[in-house]
Every structure is written in structure tokens, then in C-alpha cells.
């Protein structure tokens, strides 16, 4: 019964989307207020019906209703309840339902929190969201219905959730990632609405910037979590694999980052207008492309869902409609846009152009690396594979100029920057960072050039960030008290850049200085790695709710002092007959100790894989810092137009509330 209700509710949601796509847009074009006013209630309806459908599916999982095909394929009565809830997005159909739920949630958020935006613009934005929504609701209902029944012959028990997904990281990774992907739909809708209305001014940028930031923050966290999950769960200590699906999430992130910077220019300097719009379209298009790549089976990846050409064809059709139409609209309307801001060659604008060019080159590199094997094969040139070495090399080339611009940009002024001042600051920063790197590497033998380069770049960014704050302080002439006068969005930039610096440091250290050993051990054995002594205590049997397995216990000593106790597991999931490695990790600020349990050897010894990974936390810590930076920027008062407007209206002292 629940499944039928959910299905029906989804049909109603589709109806809402159709109405939303038509009426508000019509009203906005004709200037009819009544029709424009339907946008909000329709959006709320869209969200509520989708939410209800989603809850129905979740309840079906909790009820172990194996007559529903999707539940039978992705759950099991022995699965713990929290994994039954997350199993809703463990397969293709359910994850798409989550996709549209989040889509509807973003739409409702726009409807709720855009009080300061003129009604016709809001109506258009929501109508665009409705149009995109129609396609995806149709897709769910026609090609990927999660409520399909297995009647009359349904299984007694389900096939269980993929064990890889039975992990805390997996509980939140997909929703976060989807929040990011789908969040770009908002800025996309703003861009298209502005193109349709023919009004692309700097207010457009101001409206869409907080939404872009929100989506970007979610995407950043989502990608970082995915990386952390892979590190923990796949058992070989890697944190990024250049897997096609990772790439698919990385591309919108790169373009989204470019968009954030470009929006800043459009907002403050009224320049780069058509470019910013293109980036907004590109960010969402790449999110959709990512969705397509994951679900169509076009590429080989660990992430692939069921590959069914008809579904792939449907999504591809949607892509062509949504992206093709918006790019066509762009081609027709964008040439009329004129950027008014003028700037000299040496100015912050130029640096940000450079930033955009490099980020877009990086996106193209990833796009090419991901799609080239496909293109190559379809051209009849045979199968090739492009792996980590290609991407690693390209990114090393890109990162050096990128960091250079990252150092110069914040130090430069808008419009025109005197050469001498910038040169002096940069030389000072470079000098300091070289000194810092020398100090940091004293006493380390076996230096790696890459690590030294990475550290220098990282420290340089950090120093430039401090220099920039100092510059602001001396300009405000308030001394340290001036720190409080810096806007939250300024602090956002500072945090974002520091986060990036931390990440480069982590990446450089981990790639160059990780040590790993494959060893065979009998209980009582110990091995020495990087000054750590790993003592193998033995292996015990393990019994979980839906798995059995072995757990290896180790104590780790440093200078004779016990620093950690590790328990690495090897699990056998009985229903899916899958073996899973649960690595044991002792996290640390400057190093991770990592042990994965291998096979038992013939004489009773165990194979173990032991790693010491320096500074790996910095990679995810850096991502977290960047996300915090994004949140800080969002909290800037100048984006609270609705509240400001209200405050002015009521003339009450609502200062506390506005903050």
C-alpha cells in the first residue's frame, strides 16, 4: 500500500513540476502577478509530495517489504536499521529519488529565502527549476520506478545492501554530494532566468552567489568524504583514484570554484558577465554529465550502477534538452552583454581571469582524460586507458601557475596594481617560504623534489594570505582592532585559501613520503616502519549482524612507548558473498598509521599491509577549512537582502536577528 501511495505522490509531484514550469514563466513574461504568485505554493507542493514519496520508500525498507523489487535488491532483514534507512540511496532507483528530493528541497529553499528578489525574477527562477524537474520526474516514473512490485512471486529475504556501502562515510557521502550537484541547479536557474529576462546586471551575481557558495560547500564536503571513505574502506591506503566517477564530481567542483571567483568580479566590478553565465551553465551541465556517466555504464568504474542502455538514452536525451537548450539560449543572448568595468593588465581582475582559465583548463584535462578512452574506442582506434599518471602530471603543471595567481590575486588591487609593491610583497613571501621549507626539511633524508615544491607552494599561499590581511590592517589604520572590520566574506576567502594550502601540503607529503610494507606475520612478530614498531598480537574470529570474519590485533610502539592499538578486519558478508577489508587506522595530525589484513597463508601466518602516511589528514582538513570558508562567505550580511528589506520596513531594532 505504501509503495502505491509513494508512487502516486510522485506522480502528483510531476504534476506540480509541470505547472511550475508553465504558469510562473507565463506570468512573468506577461507581467501577471497572480500567475507569478503560483510559483511558491507549487514549489512547496513539489517538495512535500516528493518528500512523502521518499518517506514511503524509507518506511518500506524499515518494514522489510521485499515485494518491492528495489527493497529486495538492496536490503536484507538482518541489515541494521540505520543501514536500512541509508540503503534507500544504495541503488540506482532510490538514489535518483534522493536526487529529486534534494532538487525539490533546493527549490523550496529558493522560494523561502529569496524575499529580496523581485517577483518576476523569482517566478522565472522557480519555473526554470520546474522545467528541469519535469524531465527528471518523468525519468523516475517512466524508466526507473523505485516502487515497482515483485508480485506475485517475491523473495522471502532481500539480497542485502552492497557491503561497500555499509559504512558511516557512505551514510552521508551521497546526500552531501547530491546537495552539491543539484545545488548548482539554483545558480543555473538564476543564470537562465536572467538570460530569458535579458537582465544580467551585478544584482544577478549578488543573488546567485550565496546559492553557489552553498552548493560548492556541500560538493567540497561530499568529495572529501568520498575520498576519506575510499581510504578507509578499500584497504589500500589511497585517497584519490582518478576514477571516472570521482572525476565526474571533481569537474563541477572545479568549474564551481571558477564560478565563485568569477561571480565576485561580476558582483563587484560588473565585468566578465557572459563568462560568469557560461560558468553557471557549465557547472550544472557537468553535474548532469556526472549523473549520466555514473548511471549509463558508458565508462568502467567501481561506482557503476546497473547499466541499462534505455535508461542511459533517457538521461542523455534529458542532457541534450537541458544543456543544449541553455547553451543555445546563451549563444543567442550573451553577445548582447557588455562588461562595463575597465582594468589594467596588472590588476586583481587579470589574476582572476588567470584563475578561471587555469580552473577551466583543469576541468578540460579531467574531461578529456575521462572521455578520451571512450572517444578513442568509438573512432575505431582501439581501447586505451588513461590513469593516474596522466592526471598527476597535468595537475603538477597546472598547480604552479595556479598558486602563483593565488598569491598575486589577493595582494593586488582591483583595476590597477602598481608593479613595485606587488613584486616586493611576492619576493618577501617567496623568500620566507623557502626559508620555512629549508627549516621543515632539516634532518630529513631522502628528499623528494615534488614534496619540497608542494611544501613551498603551500607555505607561500599561507604567507601571502597573512600579508594580505596585514595590508588590509595597515590600510584601515586601526591596528589589530581592524581585524573585526574585515567582512565575513573576506574571512571566507582567507579560510578557503588556507584550506587549499593545507591540502597541497597534505598531498605533497602523502604522495612523496608514504611508506608501505607487505609483510607476513605470526602472532608475536613485530616490524619496524618509520620509527614505529607494529607488534602483531594475533587474529580472532569476528561475528557481526550480517557478516562474519577475522580481526587482526596489533599494538604500535614508538620509542618503546605504546601509542596505539589497531584492529584490522576482514569481513565476509554472507548474503552477497563478498569479502570486505576494514582497515584499521590510527589518525594523527602529522601521520596516520594504517593496517589492512590480507589472506591467511598456508602455514598459519597472516599477510598484513602496513602503512605510515604522513599528513594525510591535512587533505581532508584542508577541504573542511575550504568548506568553512564557504560558509563564512555565505554568512555575509550583504546577501541577507530579505532581512535587510524587512528591517527597513518595520523600523524595529532587529539587529540581533539580522546577525
Amino acid at each position, binding site marked *: 500500500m505504501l509503495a502505491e501511495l509513494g508512487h502516486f505522490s510522485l506522480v502528483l509531484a510531476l504534476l506540480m513540476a509541470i505547472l511550475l514550469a508553465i504558469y510562473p514563466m507565463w506570468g512573468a513574461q506577461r507581467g501577471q502577478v497572480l500567475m507569478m504568485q503560483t510559483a511558491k505554493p507549487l514549489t512547496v507542493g513539489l517538495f512535500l509530495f516528493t518528500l512523502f514519496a521518499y518517506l514511503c520508500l524509507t518506511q518500506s525498507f524499515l518494514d522489510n517489504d521485499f515485494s518491492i523489487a528495489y527493497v529486495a535488491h538492496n536490503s536484507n532483514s538482518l541489515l541494521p536499521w540505520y543501514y536500512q534507512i541509508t540503503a534507500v540511496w544504495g541503488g540506482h532507483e532510490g538514489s535518483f529519488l534522493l536526487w529529486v528530493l534534494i532538487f525539490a528541497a533546493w527549490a523550496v529553499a529558493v522560494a523561502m529565502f529569496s524575499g529580496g528578489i523581485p517577483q518576476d525574477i523569482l517566478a522565472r527562477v522557480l519555473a526554470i527549476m520546474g522545467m528541469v524537474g519535469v524531465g527528471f520526474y518523468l525519468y523516475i516514473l517512466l524508466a526507473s520506478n523505485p516502487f515497482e512490485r515483485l508480485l506475485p512471486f517475491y523473495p522471502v529475504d532481500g539480497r542485502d545492501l552492497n557491503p561497500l556501502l555499509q559504512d558511516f562515510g557512505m551514510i552521508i557521502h551521497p546526500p552531501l554530494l547530491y546537495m552539491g550537484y543539484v545545488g548548482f541547479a539554483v545558480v543555473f536557474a538564476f543564470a537562465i532566468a536572467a538570460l530569458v529576462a535579458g537582465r544580467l546586471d551585478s544584482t544577478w551575481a549578488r543573488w546567485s552567489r550565496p546559492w553557489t557558495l552553498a552548493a560548492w560547500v556541500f560538493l567540497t564536503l561530499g568529495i572529501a568524504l568520498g575520498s576519506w571513505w575510499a581510504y578507509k574502506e578499500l584497504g589500500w591506503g589511497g585517497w584519490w583514484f582518478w576514477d571516472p566517477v570521482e572525476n565526474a564530481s571533481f569537474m563541477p567542483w572545479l568549474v564551481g570554484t571558477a564560478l565563485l571567483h568569477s561571480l565576485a568580479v561580476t558582483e563587484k566590478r560588473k565585468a566578465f558577465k557572459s563568462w560568469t553565465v557560461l560558468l553557471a551553465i557549465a557547472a550544472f551541465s557537468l553535474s548532469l554529465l556526472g549523473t549520466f556517466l555514473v548511471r*549509463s555504464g*558508458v565508462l568502467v568504474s567501481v561506482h557503476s550502477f546497473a547499466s541499462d*542502455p534505455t535508461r542511459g538514452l533517457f538521461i542523455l536525451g534529458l542532457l541534450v534538452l537541458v544543456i543544449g537548450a541553455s547553451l*543555445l539560449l546563451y549563444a543567442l543572448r550573451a553577445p548582447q552583454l557588455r562588461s562595463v568595468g575597465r582594468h589594467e593588465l596588472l590588476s586583481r581582475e587579470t589574476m582572476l581571469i588567470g584563475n578561471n582559465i587555469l580552473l577551466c583548463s583543469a576541468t578540460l584535462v579531467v574531461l578529456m582524460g575521462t572521455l578520451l578512452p*571512450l572517444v578513442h574506442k568509438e573512432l575505431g582506434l582501439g581501447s586505451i586507458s588513461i590513469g593516474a599518471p596522466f592526471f598527476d602530471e597535468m595537475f603538477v603543471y597546472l598547480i604552479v601557475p595556479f598558486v602563483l595567481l593565488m598569491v598575486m590575486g589577493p595582494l593586488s588591487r582591483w583595476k590597477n596594481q602598481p608593479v613595485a609593491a606587488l613584486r616586493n610583497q611576492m619576493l618577501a613571501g617567496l623568500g620566507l617560504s623557502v626559508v620555512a621549507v629549508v627549516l621543515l626539511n632539516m634532518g630529513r633524508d631522502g628528499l623528494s623534489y615534488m614534496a619540497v615544491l608542494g611544501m613551498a607552494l603551500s607555505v607561500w599561499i599561507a604567507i601571502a594570505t597573512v600579508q594580505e590581511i596585514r595590508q588590509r590592517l595597515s590600510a584601515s589604520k586601526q591596528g589589530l582592532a581592524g581585524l573585526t572590520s574585515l567582512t565575513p566574506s573576506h574571512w571566507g576567502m582567507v579560510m578557503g585559501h588556507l584550506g587549499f594550502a593545507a591540502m597541497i601540503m597534505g598531498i605533497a607529503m602523502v604522495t612523496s613520503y608514504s611508506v608501505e610494507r607487505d609483510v*607476513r606475520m605470526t602472532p608475536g612478530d613485530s616490524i619496524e616502519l618509520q620509527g614505529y614498531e607494529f607488534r602483531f598480537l594475533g587474529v580472532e574470529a569476528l561475528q557481526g549482524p550480517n557478516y562474519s570474519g577475522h580481526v587482526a590485533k596489533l599494538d604500535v610502539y614508538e620509542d618503546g612507548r605504546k601509542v596505539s592499538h589497531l584492529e584490522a578486519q576482514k569481513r565476509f558478508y554472507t548474503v552477497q558473498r563478498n569479502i570486505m577489508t576494514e582497515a584499521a587506522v590510527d589518525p594523527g595530525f602529522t601521520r596516520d598509521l594504517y593496517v589492512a589484513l*590480507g*589472506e591467511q597463508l598456508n602455514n598459519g601466518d597472516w*599477510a598484513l599491509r602496513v602503512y605510515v602516511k604522513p599528513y594525510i589528514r591535512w587533505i581532508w582538513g584542508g577541504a573542511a577549512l575550504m568548506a568553512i570558508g564557504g560558509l563564512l562567505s555565505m554568512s555575509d550580511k550583504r546577501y541577507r537582502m530579505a532581512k535587510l528589506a524587512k528591517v527597513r520596513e518595520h523600523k524595529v531594532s532587529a539587529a540581533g536577528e539580522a546577525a
Partner: protein
Amino acid sequence: MKRVGLFLLPLGLFLFIVVFLLQGLFSDPREIESSLLEQPVPEFRLPDVMDASIEYGPEVFEGELTLLNVWGTWCVTCAIELPFLTELRQQGVRIVGLYYEQNMDPDFGGKSLPQIRADIDRTLSQLGNPYVFNIFDESRDTSMDFGVTGAPETFLIDRQGKVRLHHVGDLNERVWQAKFLPLYQELSQ
């Protein structure tokens, strides 16, 4: 109007990508064309899995039309295709095995040779023995040279010792009829 052309560029790029995505939808990414097709088999010197004193090289393929089947006792799908391969042998097809052991990690040693031989004997006596002999690819270099991605895989090698067909996955009645038989008959004339 020159500006419009510039602004059409993104659309053009997108449509270009779509064409390939569309084609990609209807082809299997896991299907890999062997780079060895129409090439002579790679050079190798390897022992017989049962008797280390016998050594084989590319000359074993000369003069006779041969199926080279890559397998191992650890491989479940191989066990499934063994009965069909045995049937083929009874029909007079010459099948040579290229055997490799999965867990030959030099750090850990893995299975001992007598144990491997015992496992092979047991498997073949249970499921049928299609092989004239088995080449033992101890270090897995030769499988690498052949472009083997896993087991089972089967190569059709002609009388001149050239690779004519490379099949990834199990060889069953359907695959044999559709993919191998026409070429096999043509080559055996």
C-alpha cells in the same frame, strides 16, 4: 555576427561530446580489442605445469590450429567452462592451457608447486581435462604479454602462430558458435 559564432562554441563542444556518449551507450566498455590480433604470439620460454623439465616456446603453436585457454584452479568461471572445453577436445580441437596462480605474491610465497599440481589434478579429474598440456606462467609475464586481463580468456592461434581471435570471459556453446566456429572452420581448411 562574428561574436555569435564565438558564443556558439560551447554548444558545439557539447554536441560533439554527445555524439560519442551516444555511441558509447551501445558498446560495452569492458570489451577490449586485443592489440595482438594478427600478430605472432609473443616470445616466451615456460615449463610444463606438471613437469618442470619440459619447456615450451612459441613453436608449440606452429603447424596446428590451437586454442590457448588461460585459466587457474582458483577461477570459478574457468571451472564452469572446463566441461565445454573438454567436449571441444573430444571433437578434435587442440586446446593448450596457459596456467597461472593468482596468489603468487613474492612477499608471501603462496601455494607450493606440489600443492598447485594436486589442485590441478583434482579439478581436471572432476570436470574433465581439455588440455593437451598446460604451460605454467609462473611470474605471469607471458599472460601480460598476451594482454590477458583475467581468467578465463581464450585465444585462437593459427598454423603460422598468429593470434586470430581473443575472447575475454568464458567460452560456452553460444560464444563458440557465434564467435569462434566460422573462423575456426575457415582456418582449418
